[in-house]
């Protein structure tokens, strides 16, 4: 990714910092971030996890929301690049998966089987606190020092935007905001289940239906998910895909 133009980078940073909008949706914001970071790489997928109050990393968003990718993030409760970045507060870069089984006995073989060759992970930091991690799964060891700095800076800016600096004087409020974000992610999973069952489709396809419906109607993802689960036992009509 060493050839990103200054203009493109500038635009990217502004997008990621632009969170003080009225209709701010944490999950959508994080999805935007993962997509933008994925765009920086030639090949690869990006996902993001936040820690809950028990210190467990929880999946929040990915550049491609599929069960395959979600599972790779979720299984990192025991080992994996995101967990390392989260625990050490430092980026993990250019790890060749084929040689990483000793390091990550659970994660490495499954990520390799999913078709990835290399991984990177970046801590999501706010001052001294690490609130989560962002993982990049790709096909080659392609990050140099300058690249690492760019992605890490992007992550840092995103965290500040996410938690809206003016509201985070105290750690308890920070955890309170995260709490709301983690819960809105659960609502999306619940809505996926409702739609999957009602329409006889997979959770992945259910997500696509929900997301496309939200886009077509210019509504936020979390808001649509919420509407689906609170209408129960009425079932959602999301129109044709």
């Amino acid at each position, binding site marked *: 990714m060493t050839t990103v133009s200054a203009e493109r980078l500038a635009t990217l940073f502004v997008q990621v910092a632009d969170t003080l909008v009225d209709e701010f949706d944490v999950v959508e914001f994080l999805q935007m971030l993962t997509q933008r970071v994925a765009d920086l790489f030639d090949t690869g997928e990006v996902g993001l996890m936040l820690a809950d*109050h*028990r*210190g*467990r990393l*929880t*999946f929040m968003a990915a550049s491609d929301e599929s069960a395959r990718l*979600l599972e790779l993030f*979720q*299984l990192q*409760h025991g080992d994996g690049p995101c967990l390392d970045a989260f625990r050490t507060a430092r980026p993990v870069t250019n790890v060749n998966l084929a040689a990483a089984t000793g390091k990550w006995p659970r994660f490495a073989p499954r990520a390799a089987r999913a078709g990835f060759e290399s991984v990177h992970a970046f801590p999501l930091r706010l001052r001294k606190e690490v609130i989560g991690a962002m993982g990049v799964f790709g096909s080659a060891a392609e990050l140099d020092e300058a690249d690492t700095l760019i992605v890490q800076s992007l992550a840092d800016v995103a965290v500040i935007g996410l938690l809206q600096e003016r509201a985070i004087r*105290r*750690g*308890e*409020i920070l*955890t*309170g*905001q995260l*709490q*709301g974000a983690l*819960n809105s992610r*659960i*609502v999306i*999973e*619940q*809505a*996926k*289940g*409702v*739609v*999957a*069952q*009602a329409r006889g489709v997979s*959770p992945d396809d259910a997500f696509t239906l929900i997301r496309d419906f939200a886009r077509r109607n210019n509504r936020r993802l979390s808001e649509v998910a*919420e509407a689906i*689960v*609170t209408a*129960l*036992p009425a*079932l959602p009509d999301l129109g044709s895909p």
Partner: protein
Amino acid sequence: MDDRIVRVARLIADEPARTGDRGGVAGVLRRLCSAAERAMSAHGVGVSVMADDGMRGVAAVSEPSYEPLEELQFTLGEGPCLDAFATRRPVLVPDLSDGATRRWPGYAPALHGLGVRAVFAFPLQIGAARLGALDVFRDEPGSLTAGEFRDALTFADVAVTTLLDGQAQAPPGTAADGLDEVIEQRAELFQAQGMVAVQLGISLTDAMARLRAYAYAEDKALGEVARDVVARRLSFDSGHS
């Protein structure tokens, strides 16, 4: 990694029973309130249950003198526990003399009259499934420490599972709670919750209670049951019981 929940569960288990304790869920919640009171240097802790259809009431308090105070929120239709339930986020008021009367014109003076100087409320919820709120009252102003805050959220977690298991008539706290199995397949658990709600035409809360009761009855891990539901190897609407 999950030291906190182990410790909180132990605090509740070690909390001595009192004469006048009711059996089952109410008794467990009373001990939970007392253990939380001690762990957070609080003056009183209460758990109120609420449902989206408006059903609500006080489930337990650490000290009998706090029952009217919990109850008063429902009479007045205002207070921290109603706000936590409505906003789905923790409500943190470390100093009641700082604007609380504007927020709760009736309730704040009542709190003050009883010597309460700070109040914190935590929603009892799993995504869109809402069960109530946990209130923490203190007689001195001041914020919760980060550790106390996480403890409060963990006590709230235990209150949620206790209420769910009580609903399904499983022995409280014994169902496949999962100190670890929930971690790995969290997304599947919430997806399964949505699927079961549709299969049985019930609420998300009831769906989670059913999943937990099933896991307990079959002696299976909750995550495993959830995976079976998502993979459509297990359905609750026909022939599983």
